[in-house]
């Protein structure tokens, strides 16, 4: 066994889950913020799905008004502290920075983190609840979209209750994004900001089980469905129930909620899939001390859905990639533990309905990899049952909405976030969910009061 990765501590695994990026120092932030041109009608604002007034928040860092900076960020994006860490900034704000054409773009994500970190460290409460308007809204799901909707509704004076199945709100940000990129306390601070607007968050409450759908539909003036997505689907191959086969989402969640264990120390891990969750599963495995981590993907690097910076990060972590490789069978030992995986090589055929070339198995190319664990990361299933309890029209668990109003087939129920993502509809980014949450809030306000304007 060769445990030689210099980025990893094999003595203190817990340390491997500390945030990787140290954030800007005060001096770095001053220099970088002063480098911003303070463009007029800046393209970075347009490139941000939540429309953060980026030049303004950066100017405020330069002037030493860090609280004001954090407020500018959080006003447009209620989960702006998380987004500072997880947004694919080079595809959004930083990609649009005019300095790409003269020097190098401003580190907008890092500056956003600098300002929000300051607010977190100094326990700032940035907003006050609006004057109560007497209307009630239930939000099902306390993830990015739900929190964002709740924050806007709280500012507008609604009596808001979030129903959250998990022990804590925050959704993906709390449970699904690896700690070394997004520590839980960041998400918890954002939840607290929402709670400071008198939003009630009923955790450990699974709608449809702990409280009935009828009760919610009856007791509230409007309902927002922001339930996100569910577990990783099954691979549909033999051996999936062996000990040592994991759902990537559960796997990551464990590293964020339970003490770090040494059960992966020196082990060989394969991850199936090549999206951002697969990368998270792989890099978590490395940080848990695994000796060798491979990502198996049935297509090629070109079709991979993980962000470039995630791919780079995984490569630096020593993760190996096996392109055009699909699992065929997981093989266990006599105790029912995973001991190997049988794979088959693929080739790419004609483009499918989604425009991506579909993989075709190459007959007789099977081979066996000896492994100790298999992590599945091939997408997420839908909470179709709950959607149907609400009686909403959907397509394979993707709730149908009027894109103008975010209204579902039940005019009282609005939907946002991952529950409306898929089948050619919407965007999967956390920051898009934040904007949809805001939009759902404005849509409700418009329906109830006829008002359209954002809160100033």
């Amino acid at each position, binding site marked *: 066994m060769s445990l030689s990765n210099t980025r990893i501590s094999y003595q203190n695994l817990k340390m491997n889950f500390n945030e990787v990026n140290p954030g800007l120092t005060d001096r770095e932030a001053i*220099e970088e913020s*002063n480098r911003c*041109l*303070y*463009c*007029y*009608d800046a*393209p970075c604002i347009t490139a941000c799905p939540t429309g953060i007034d980026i030049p303004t928040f950066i100017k405020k860092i330069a002037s030493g008004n860090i609280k004001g900076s954090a407020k500018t960020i959080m006003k447009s994006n209620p989960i702006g502290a998380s987004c500072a860490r997880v947004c694919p900034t080079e595809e959004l704000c930083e990609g649009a920075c005019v*300095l790409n054409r*003269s020097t190098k773009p401003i580190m907008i994500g890092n500056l956003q983190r600098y300002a929000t970190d300051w607010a977190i460290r100094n326990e700032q409460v940035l907003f006050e609840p609006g004057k109560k308007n007497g209307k009630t809204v239930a939000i099902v799901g306390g993830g990015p979209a739900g929190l964002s909707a709740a924050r806007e509704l709280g500012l507008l004076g609604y009596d808001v209750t979030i129903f959250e199945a998990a022990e804590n709100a925050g959704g993906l940000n709390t449970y699904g994004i690896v700690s070394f990129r997004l520590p839980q306390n960041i998400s918890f601070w954002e939840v607290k900001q929402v709670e400071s607007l008198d939003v009630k968050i009923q955790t450990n409450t699974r709608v449809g089980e702990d409280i009935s759908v009828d009760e919610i539909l009856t007791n509230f003036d409007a309902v927002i469905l922001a339930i996100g997505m569910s577990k990783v689907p099954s691979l549909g191959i033999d051996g999936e129930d062996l000990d040592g086969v994991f759902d990537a989402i559960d796997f990551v969640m464990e590293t964020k909620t339970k003490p770090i264990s040494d059960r992966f120390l020196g082990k060989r891990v394969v991850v199936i899939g090549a999206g951002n969750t697969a990368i998270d599963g792989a890099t978590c495995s490395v940080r848990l001390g695994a000796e060798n981590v491979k990502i198996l993907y049935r297509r090629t690097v070109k079709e991979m859905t993980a962000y470039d910076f995630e791919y780079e990060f995984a490569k630096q972590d020593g993760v190996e990639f096996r392109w055009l490789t699909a699992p065929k069978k997981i093989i266990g030992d006599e105790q029912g533990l995973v001991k190997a995986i049988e794979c088959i090589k693929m080739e790419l055929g004609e483009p499918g309905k989604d425009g991506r070339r579909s993989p075709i198995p190459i007959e007789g190319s099977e081979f066996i990899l000896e492994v100790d664990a298999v992590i599945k990361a091939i997408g997420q299933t839908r909470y179709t049952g709950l959607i149907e309890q609400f009686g909403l029209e959907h397509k394979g668990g993707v709730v149908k909405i009027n894109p103008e109003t975010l209204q579902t087939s039940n005019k009282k129920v609005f939907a946002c976030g991952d529950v409306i993502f898929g089948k050619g509809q919407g965007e999967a980014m956390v920051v898009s969910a934040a904007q949809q949450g805001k939009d759902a809030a404005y849509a409700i306000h418009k329906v109830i009061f006829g008002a359209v304007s954002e809160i100033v």
Partner: protein
Amino acid sequence: MADLRINLAGIESPNPFWLASAPPTNSGYQVQRAFDAGWGGAVWKTLGDPILNVTSRFGAVSFNGQRVAGFNNIELISDRPLEVNLKEIKETKKLFPNHTIIASLMVEPKQEKWHEIVKRVEEVGVDGLELNFGCPHGMAERGMGSASGQVPSLVEQQTYWVKEVAQTPVIVKLTPNITDITATAEAATRGGADAISMINTINSLAGVDLDTWNTIPHVGGKGAHGGYCGPAVKPIALNMVAECARSPHINIPISGIGGISTWQDAVEYMLMGASGVQVCTAAMHHGFRIVEDMIEGLDNYLEQKGIASVMDIVGKTVPRYSDWGDLDLNYKIVARINNDVCINCNKCHIACEDTSHQCIDMLKDGNGYNILKVREEDCVGCNLCSIVCPVDGAIDMVEVPSGLPPMTWNERQAALGAVSCKIDSVK
């Protein structure tokens, strides 16, 4: 290599870069280090009757995260015994006979005081004297420094007293804390000064601490005004040099001082009439070694321009500096934006729209890309857009023919006067 030697009122120096009278020239050790680094001369920190200094002496102004845009001090003249300074001047001159040492002097405005100190410093072999009529803080409260320097008759009288006994050239250092510096410069000339140097520091308060509400700097919770220098004062000083250089009543050499940080600054001062320059803040910010680039940069500049001697550039821009009334009202420039270079920060648009003449439009080109365009007929040629533009070459200020012959305000008024006279005569 170009000839960088200068001659300022008979004082020769291997190059135009002198350290100004200030903390960097406090001791023989420092001045010797400076000469080793390449400085052509040093004006020794002002000698006079012993004084006491306070601690917490300097303050500085940062701008957009950059340190020392401006610098403020409340340090007084030399606090070391005169004998010690004189001994070290002698030693230093012996070690560096080809470098220039000027003694800066400040005493009470009494003839015998001036006679005494001039004789004592000339005994140790200085190359010239600089009379400190400029220091705005501390000493001024005792009737010296700028308190003397603000009164033309005192400048003239004290210069005269010095000239009564001086064997070496006398430079009078002027204070900028005065409405018209040519008044005191002329007074120095009348007193017999061989040269003038400017500017001394400007009355200043560096700042106020937002948490303690103390001044910056403060001495145990109390502050007093200091003297301001550094890059931020250069335009003020440059104008004062230029005004003296173009005055027909001031015909003695000028040593330029004020915010000089690079060889480029030095070239500007010399073009504006200075025969040499003095530097302080830049050395305090970066150390003596910056002079290497100053010398090399100046040499390369002269070589590239084909100029044999640095003295050949002295005053070359002075004839081009005039009064507003002599400027051509019919000269017209307009802004032109090069959209191939422009990065679309739109700073020119908003600067023009909000604060100038509303003539830069944000448009789309044929392919739907954002472009910026100047409506030249509305452009007043103010330069603001090209000043705020962060990209070199994106905005050019170009001359456009006005179709009219040159006409200054003064010429226009004269012409109007002639016309009205005629009308009068018709009556």
